[in-house]
């Protein structure tokens, strides 16, 4: 089991007015992983990040980073944590170079021009180092925020909606940059609305809703455990009733009796094999069909399903 570098236990946050943004959250983050925190708007993702990074005062609970209690020994812990906020909050009149150098100094690091150069080059900002931040595009501003967060070489990096509002090309470029950070040993916690992003990058996924963590698991394990296969078979002629050899499969006949829907499998490929068996059984039973459309559930389907269960609970 990889070493845990962040331990959150019983964390709750109740804002003035009674809104419970976090409700008894327990979470353990492993060294070197990319952890994606998924949840709808207002689920508590940003509050959770804010509590770890010192922007939000928790109502109760404990947090430990790198073995340091974040309430008591916050200086040592925060020196090793970086944050890229959701909002494009930068000093618009400052140049890129000065803004990133400021972050390096603020976190107690000596001025290191070579390191700053590496960071800016890595984020394709080197040519813009003397430009005022207000003159940059939205995507570049977001990269400046990432550069600022990397200026003190954090071992744990929070990315709050890192690709919000950026185009597809830039988003993929950012995924590559985040993957490169992971290669360098940085542990990354990201929140996102884009399920595709979590599916592409995360090692583990946590789903949060109403301030409560509904599930935390390896992305693959989650997809295997909760994944299903759906196959829609358009029949050539209406079927009066399902023959017993077909009814043995997890299938439903629609009201018009011309469409057969299979839902089963476990996300490990078993569903597709069973659909092949179903097709053979239909042929053996002399039932003709016009088309067969197979779809494996994505992380998004699982996410939506879990949120539905969360609301019902």
């Amino acid at each position, binding site marked *: 089991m990889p070493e845990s570098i962040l331990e959150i236990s019983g964390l709750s946050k109740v*804002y003035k007015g009674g809104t419970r943004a976090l409700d008894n959250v327990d979470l353990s983050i492993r060294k070197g992983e990319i952890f994606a925190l998924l949840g709808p708007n207002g689920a508590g993702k940003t509050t959770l990040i*804010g509590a770890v*990074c*010192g*922007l*939000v*005062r928790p109502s109760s609970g404990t947090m430990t980073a790198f073995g340091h209690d974040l309430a008591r020994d*916050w*200086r*040592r812990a*925060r*020196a090793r*944590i970086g*944050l890229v*906020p959701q*909002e494009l*909050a*930068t*000093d*618009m*009149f*400052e140049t890129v170079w*000065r803004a990133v150098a*400021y*972050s*390096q*100094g*603020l*976190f*107690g*690091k*000596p001025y290191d021009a070579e390191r700053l150069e590496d960071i800016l080059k890595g984020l394709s900002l080197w040519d813009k180092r003397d430009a005022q931040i207000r003159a940059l595009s939205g995507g570049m501003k977001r990269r400046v925020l990432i550069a*600022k967060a990397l200026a003190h070489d954090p071992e744990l990096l929070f990315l709050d909606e890192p690709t919000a509002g950026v185009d597809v090309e830039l988003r993929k470029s950012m995924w590559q940059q985040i993957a490169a950070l992971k290669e360098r040993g940085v542990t990354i916690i990201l929140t996102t609305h884009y399920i595709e992003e979590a599916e592409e990058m995360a090692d583990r996924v946590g789903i949060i809703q109403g301030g409560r963590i509904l599930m935390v698991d390896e992305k693959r394990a989650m997809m295997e455990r909760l994944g299903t296969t759906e196959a829609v078979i358009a029949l050539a002629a209406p079927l009066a009733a399902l023959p017993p050899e077909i009814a043995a499969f997890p299938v439903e006949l629609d009201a018009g009796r011309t469409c057969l829907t299979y839902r089963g499998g476990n996300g490990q490929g078993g569903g597709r094999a069973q659909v092949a068996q179903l097709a053979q059984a239909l042929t053996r039973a002399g039932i003709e069909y016009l088309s067969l459309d197979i779809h494996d559930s994505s992380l998004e389907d699982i996410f939506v399903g879990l949120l539905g269960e969360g609301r019902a609970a």
Partner: protein
Amino acid sequence: MHFNVRSAYAIYRREMSRAFRTAFQSILSPVLTTSLYFVVFGSVIGARMEPIGGVPYGAFIIPGLLMLTLLGETTSNASFGIYMPRFTGTIYELLSAPVGVAETLAGFVGAAMTKGLILAAIILATATLFVDYQIAHPVFAAFYIMLVASSFALFGFILGIWADSFEKLGIIPLLLLTPLTFLGGTFYSIRDLPAPWDAVALANPIAFLVSGLRWTFYGTADVPIAVSLGLTLGFLALCVVIITVIFRTGWRLRE
């Protein structure tokens, strides 16, 4: 107690860079305003006035005018310095950094104080163009200016945390500090006021500051220098206590 010099210096340097970026507003504007005071009150009206306490009128108003600018500028600079990051959201970086109250104050307040001192030096240099004056206790004057600048930079810091709008940010310097400085003996000696206004004027704490600075310049004051010094030190201590409480509780900084 932890103190990270690099963090404090980073904040200080950025604040100073902001001041130089807005040099016209930060430095030239107050110098121009003060010069106008010297022209109107010092040279034109001052030429027709009797010396006060043996000090020519043009020279008499220098400490008061210096105090007027010093209080307004250090308060505004420090309040703006912390209010803007709160307003734009860039305060997230300060709050997430391994930086405590000591480094924050050293950076923000140190920069506001430095700007105040630069301004004071420029104003005194400007004053030589209009009136002749000698500073009786130059070292004490420099110390007292630094003390007042740091106290009001701390006060401005509190103001910048308290304010939740630009309007509130401007209210205290405009509606409190400026009138109190005008009424605090900038252009006259409180001792020359008829009773009971001479006693009422002493309810104005700025009068003690103007009097204290005037003593360092000319060795003459409306109230004993020890009282002025004690009051200023007390105000400084009060501001430090308030800011420490703000950081401990996270009031208006952390949600």
